């Protein structure tokens, strides 16, 4: 009996250290964000002496964090919705319309992207964005984000669209729908769950992107959150309280959203790897 109990507990005992390694750093940051510098040095492990939100006040008043949040949201949502719309039409054309040769060529072009690490496009993209007069505008990120999102989104959507039976479209034709009507009234509603998945996949990628956001926007007011966090950390690199408060501000909303939408988020983030 006790042996059996031990056997049941064994996996948990092995997992405990790993779970601690994952969670403790986050907890440590949140603790530190409520302490002042002397406390962080002298009593790193304990709870803060008083529940003080002074660091948060400093972090919020010393920066345009509301701006950055709005910038990230605007760029993330615009790029993601455009990616979804453009990918949906392409995936529909490639899988449901009858142009086999053309469609193979389109698919082939998109497959090239699987071979190329995005970082190696950084410098020519930077030049291009400057030449097009997009440098230092939200467009400098929106267009590259759309183009980086399209291939994977098309692959995921196409995999789903292939599974829709032809009869549904025939019924649509019978009801007098045009090609556009079939896409809008029959295919889109059926694809909704997959669209949610690819929305999450793209939005998280765009929301978290750092390198291009750091390089293509130099105006401080246009910054996105990831760039702002890194800049903030550089600026306050000895003021651990304010720095950890800024980190906490950036991660707590994400953790809360994850707690609410866990299932969809896990599905969304892993979708790309399974199909790709």
């Amino acid at each position, binding site marked *: 009996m006790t042996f059996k109990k031990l056997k*049941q507990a064994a*996996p*948990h005992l092995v*997992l405990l250290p*790993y*779970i601690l390694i*994952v*969670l*403790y*750093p*986050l907890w440590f*940051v949140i603790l530190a964000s409520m302490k002042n*510098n002397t406390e962080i*040095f002298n009593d*790193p*492990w304990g709870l803060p002496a008083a529940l003080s939100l002074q660091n948060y006040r400093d972090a919020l008043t010393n920066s345009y964090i509301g701006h950055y949040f709005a910038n990230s949201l605007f760029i993330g949502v615009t790029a993601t919705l455009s990616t979804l719309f*453009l990918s949906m*039409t*392409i995936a529909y054309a490639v899988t449901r*319309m*009858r*142009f086999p040769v053309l469609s193979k060529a*389109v698919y082939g*072009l*998109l497959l*090239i*992207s699987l*071979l190329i*690490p995005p*970082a*190696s*496009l*950084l*410098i*020519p993209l930077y*030049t291009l964005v400057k030449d097009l007069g997009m440098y230092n505008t939200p467009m400098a990120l929106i*267009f590259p984000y759309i*183009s*980086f999102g399209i291939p994977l989104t098309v692959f995921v959507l196409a995999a789903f669209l292939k599974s829709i039976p032809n009869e549904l479209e025939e019924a649509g*034709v019978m009801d007098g729908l045009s090609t556009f009507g079939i*896409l809008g009234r029959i295919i889109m509603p059926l694809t909704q769950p997959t669209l949610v998945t690819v929305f999450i996949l793209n939005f998280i990628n765009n929301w*978290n992107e*750092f*390198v291009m956001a*750091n*390089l293509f926007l130099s105006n401080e007011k246009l910054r996105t*959150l*990831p760039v702002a966090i*890194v800049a903030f*950390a550089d600026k306050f690199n000895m003021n*651990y309280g304010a*720095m950890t408060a800024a*980190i906490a501000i*950036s991660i707590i909303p994400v953790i809360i959203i*994850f707690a609410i939408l*866990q299932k969809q988020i896990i599905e969304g*983030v*892993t979708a790309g*790897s*399974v199909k790709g």
Partner: protein
Amino acid sequence: MAPYILARESWWITHMKNIQRNYWAYVIFVVPALLIYVTFYLYPLFQSLQYSLTKWNGINDPVFVGLSNFAKAISDEQFWVSFKNNIYFVLFSVFIQVPFIVFISIIVSSAKRFLNFYKLTVFLPCILSTASIGVIWQFIYSPDAGLLNQLLTAVGLESWKRIWLGDEATAFLSILLTNGWQWTGFYIVLVLAAIFAIPKEMLEAGEMDGATGWRKAWLLTIPLIRPVIMVTLLLSITGAMKALDIILIMTKGGPFGSSEVMASYMYKQAYTINDFGYANAIAVIVSLFTAVLSLIFQYINVKTREASE
């Protein structure tokens, strides 16, 4: 009756065909998306190839210099340091991270309780931005207030303390561990899904034949989840080649270039040194090297699959 039905039938088929072979609709559906993709993906790729053959400071007109940028890379010691770091990154992922992922996944799958809790917790780091994670770990590695050094003090290992990100011996390893912390959970969730997709009957049959515990994992589970392990390996290899943001955030390649990878070295050549020709040549090398690695991997994948069958 019959001719009427036939006529209707053929009208119907042509009509359906017209709808599915509507040229204009096809053009409207495909062209805008393709235009953006070609402009912001394929065109830069092409430009990168072009600029890699030039001497260019980013401002004046580029001057064609043939392959001399590639020759420069071969004789550039700093480039080889970054190349070696990419190799270490790949080896670390393949031989340390992936086995760890499979091990943890099998353990999680054997837990009867808290399954969802484990899944959520391990997944959490990979939805945080690399920027936040980089900054969090900078704080953990920081010389005096950092978690790691405080921990070493607390357990009496003061002599192990060091400036983790400022020491040539530990900077890159510290980044690898942070990267591992960020992505391990993502792969665990992938592998777990594959383990749970194994038909129950198969495992039960195996148990009847006496395969239990680690024998079962080794003889049954691991061979059955081979495809997802291969996906995990491929993604970690390409992931190791892609890494750039975490390096820029945590060390900027320092100290003395010891934590530079090819992508970050390219970044430095372009934006610190203004040698855009050389930087593009490095970009081309990164792409080629990634493609070669993926092909070698595919080759090994096919060969070992044939062998195991």
